[in-house]
């Protein structure tokens, strides 16, 4: 069996890619996909630790996180569609109607 550090390394890389995606990309959908990648990095870390320790807890937590991610998708996509109706754009650099 591969040592757990390999999986955690992969999870950390995925998390970093997701974080960079949120910070660099300007399309709301891509940003949202990057957030999902970060959440799945967390899931991967949970599952690999649970497997390494022989504990079931970590695997159950992944179900919680997946359900929450699904709820976020439902709300998030609705918001993105809504703003596309109004603005015809989902580029977050153009979300600048408020200044101060």
């Amino acid at each position, binding site marked *: 069996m591969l040592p757990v550090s390999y999986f955690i390394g992969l999870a950390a890389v995925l998390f970093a890619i997701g974080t960079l995606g949120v910070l660099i990309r300007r399309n709301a959908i891509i940003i949202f996909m990057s957030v999902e990648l970060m959440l799945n990095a967390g899931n991967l870390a949970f599952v690999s630790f649970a497997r390494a320790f022989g504990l079931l807890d970590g695997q159950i937590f992944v179900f919680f996180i997946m359900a*929450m991610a699904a709820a976020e998708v439902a709300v998030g996509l609705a918001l993105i569609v809504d703003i596309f109706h109004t603005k015809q754009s989902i580029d977050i650099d153009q979300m600048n109607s408020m200044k101060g």
Partner: protein
Amino acid sequence: MNFSDLTTILPLITLVGWAIILILVDLFIPAQRKGIMAMLSAIGIMISLVIAICQFGGQTTAFSGMVVFDGFSVFLQILFLISGLAAIALAYDYIKRQGIERSEYYILLMFSLSGMTLMAMADDLIIIFLALELLSIPLYVLAGFANPRLDSEEAALKYFLLGSFSDAFVVFGTALVFGAARTTTIPGIIAAITVGAANLILLMVGAALILIGLGFKVSIVPFHMWTPDVYQGAPSSVTAFMAVGAKTAGFAALLRVFMAAFNTLAVDLVPVLWALAALTMILGNITAIVQGNIKRLLAYSSIAHTGYISMVLVTINQSRITQHAVGAALFYLVAYAVTSFGAWAVVITLEHSEGKGLNVEDYAGLGRKYPALAAAMTVFMLSFTGVPPTLGFLGKFYIFRAVLEGGYVGLAIIGVLTSLVSAYYYLRVVVVMYMREGEPLVRKEFWLSSTIFMTAIATVIVSIFSTPLFTWASKGIMFIPK
């Protein structure tokens, strides 16, 4: 799971159950009479509040240690539920006149409130994550409730993207803590650290990620970028609820996790927490000076108040003053909640459709035309500044005392100096109200006026008789089962 587990979370069950029933009841209420829903949800929150008060006293855990019932959780639950009632009072007339009266408003508010009450009881990092999501997701929708108004939609999108970004930090941090301690319950983490079974590097990284995630929620600088835009764009009644509820819930988690579980990491964490608190106070207060829009001004002021509350986190490793520090933070949260609801109620009273009436200049002449309203606003501004005899003064006093007892004189000095800076922009509102001529447009609405009246009275009266409240807050210590 057994019956006593369920009675422990009875206020939460009542809220969620009532909200679900209201979704069905809503079908039978005609579109012109959605105001009934406000009354019905207020009744649900009151039932939950009565149960929470009846449960007062005692310490226990439930659901295999995932939720804990102690002084801390009861105190915060009561604060959240009263905030929920105030939020309904602010929304009732406001959403009607803004043309966004839909009964989902109250139902979403109740779901968000149930997330907050769960956060008060959470004793497991996974429950903290669940509570965070349960309170955030309805708030994302509420922030965009005034659609198709563009700034409301933008606020919702920004809040959603940065909110889910911060949740991802909490998830990954929790996963690393799980890897370090082999458990996610807070007593379990403490035990793992005590016996030396925990991997300290993983734990440290995990704690840092959780700090970032929760820092976004309570808007600690440099994770505050979303706050001004979201506070400005969201409907004002939602902003008031968000400013009080979401921030208090975030601090409930921060205090519970950092004061109890991560205090052994203090050597590495305290300098970071020190810098974050100082930065938050300085940046929040200085940026607020240049704001012309009252909603943005209050947004930056709420960032500054986050800074004051997060000052107590630097005392995490000094167990002899933990009780004072947690008590001071809880007291400050009460003071902030009362004053904020009052100030936002005044903002809502002067706000018109299309976002008019939101500049500080629109308050000109208020002192002459509506002396009672101007006096109330003055009380709130003085309380935000921290002038006696107001709740805000005592809140700051207890916080500074706890920080000084911890031996962080420099931080306390920064706190006092930034409070002086804050007097400039708070008192500017007062000056505009009394010294300038103008024709302010004010709406007389029963629930708004009574909220303003009650919070103004409470800000002054409670501050005179504050000792019982502080004693109660300092009894809100966290119960750590062996």
